[in-house]
């Protein structure tokens, strides 16, 4: 063990080979997930009560007028599938960003209160203020952003400590849940059903109009988030290590939080807080990807795949049409328990 000026070529080869192997695996997983998302998207356009041939679907997308297909595919299935894809992408990106940044798989934005901000706003908007669907979306977005700001400020004390952020978030989340229960308990039966559908998260109300704000948010925020993943990877080594490596820790953290919360807020406004998508995507993707780099983009792709598949199952596989959130919720709860049991054994670091 002595200091040397040049490493032996053998060591350099091992290092380079390991790096190429990790890069190959990253590429493989991302391409695989992207292909699966495209396949799921196409299938959700083709399949349904009526099956349209792929040529009809393509024709409708190109703008041609096809008898029957123009309405079913163009007006119903396409905005629904695109909304599912975008919401899943937004939730997957946001969830994994939070979990990676806070180094805790339980720290996804839906667990730490940001979705509950949107939910409380939506319930109040529907039941108390009697707002139109698009006004409910806008109101939910704004309140989700405000909730995140409140959580951040309450957790702030010379920088934000991870545990404090999670605990404050869980506290705020419970408070907002009781607001939701309070408002629901005084609601008329019909309104209540609308509110419950919103709270479960569903894609039935998907229109191009409601999709547009989310689409813009995803197009603007995803590149910003992806540019930050290099610094995010450094943050995984601990705040002090990251700072020593030249990462402006607090600024990066604020940017990451803003991007992730905005994605979460716009996604929730478009389709409700589809249960557990943000929470599930990160840890599952981390298993698929392995320890070869940032799980954020892959998690976004997985989220998109999860919502598309879960919505298809919810619509056609169970006899009755369920909101997509019922399926993701049914998958998510056991997974949450699994994570908790596992984290007791390993210490819970992601």
């Amino acid at each position: 063990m002595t200091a040397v000026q040049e490493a032996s070529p053998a060591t350099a080869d091992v290092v380079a080979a390991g790096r190429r192997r990790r890069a190959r695996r990253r590429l493989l997983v991302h391409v695989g997930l992207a292909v699966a998302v495209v396949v799921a998207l196409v299938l959700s356009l083709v399949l349904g009560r009526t099956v349209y041939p792929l040529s009809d679907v393509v024709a409708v997308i190109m703008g041609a007028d096809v008898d029957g297909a123009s309405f079913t595919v163009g007006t119903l299935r396409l905005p629904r599938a695109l909304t599912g894809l975008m919401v899943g992408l937004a939730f997957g990106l946001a969830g994994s960003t939070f979990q990676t940044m806070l180094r805790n798989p339980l720290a996804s934005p839906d667990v730490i209160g940001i979705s509950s901000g949107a939910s409380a706003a939506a319930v109040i908007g529907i039941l108390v203020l009697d707002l139109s669907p698009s006004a409910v979306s806008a109101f939910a977005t704004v309140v989700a952003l405000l909730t995140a700001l409140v959580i951040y400020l309450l957790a702030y004390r010379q920088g934000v400590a991870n545990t404090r952020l999670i605990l404050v978030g869980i506290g705020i989340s419970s408070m907002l849940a009781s607001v939701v229960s309070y408002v629901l308990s005084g609601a008329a039966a019909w309104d209540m059903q609308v509110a419950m559908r919103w709270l479960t998260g569903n894609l039935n109300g998907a229109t191009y109009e409601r999709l547009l704000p989310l689409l813009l948010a995803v197009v603007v925020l995803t590149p910003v988030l992806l540019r930050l993943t290099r610094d995010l990877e450094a943050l995984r080594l601990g705040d002090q290590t990251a700072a020593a490596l030249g990462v402006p820790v607090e600024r990066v953290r604020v940017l990451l939080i803003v991007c992730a919360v905005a994605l979460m807020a716009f996604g929730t406004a478009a389709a409700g807080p589809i249960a557990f998508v943000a929470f599930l995507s990160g840890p599952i993707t981390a298993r698929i990807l392995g320890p070869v780099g940032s799980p954020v983009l892959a998690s976004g792709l997985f989220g998109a795949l999860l919502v598309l598949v879960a919505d298809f199952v919810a619509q056609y596989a169970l006899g009755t049409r369920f909101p997509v959130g019922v399926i993701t919720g049914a998958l998510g709860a056991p997974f949450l328990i699994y994570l908790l049991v596992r984290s007791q054994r390993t210490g819970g670091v992601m």
Partner: protein
Amino acid sequence: MTSDHTLAAAGLSLGYGDRTVVDDLDLVIPPGKVTAIVGANASGKSTVLKAMSRLLAPRTGAVLLDGKEIHRTPTKEVARTLGLLPQSPVAPEGIAVADLVGRGRHPHQGMLSRWSAEDDAAVARALEVTGTADLADRAVDELSGGQRQRVWIAMVLAQETDVLLLDEPTTFLDVAHQVEVLDLLTDLNRELGTTIVMVLHDLNLAARYADHLVAIRDGALYACGEAAEVLTRECVADVFGLSSVVVPDPTCGKPMVLPLGRHHVAEGHRTVPA
């Protein structure tokens, strides 16, 4: 080749919340030497190291790296000159040794410039220097404590900084691994001229391995200089509140501290007051 970077604190006051930990500290780190900072628990020694590595902003005063205020210099620029190994860094689950060591290249890579052959070479050098080359593809969480500490040192070495700060690099290691880590740091200092500053708990190892010893008491500089001048019976009594006998270390001639507790002390030494 690299001993021309200077690091100093001038009129440095530090604290957390309402609590002042360090008040008006002046400290000059000798370039190209190994410096050890010693002091009692909560004396502020780790706080000083945090400020010297720009992790903690000073209340008043400044830390000067090459004469420039470190807190006003772009953090990435600082990271190319000054590296820090904190006390408890976190290894992401399952990460490979070479991957973790590669994270040390962060300050040398731009937003757009991707991984270069120079980065691979730096990682390979860091692995060889720390004797971890044969662990390159292993997962960090499978390693023993001593191996893991060498891997973390390899990560800060891959950063290729001329000044290296370490916060208690030997904690949680058995005595053999402590010596191994300190030997490695000495190699770096002697062969590459790296300026090394470390917080150490073990006074005898600090005395043996440091060219320059800094004793901190209650957030103020108590004494600094060569171990023989600094580490005296009075110093140990004042800084640690501990009676002791200080004798020359038979293996190197540096001072060696033998603590005097209330028990297991022969008659002749009993009377020494604290």
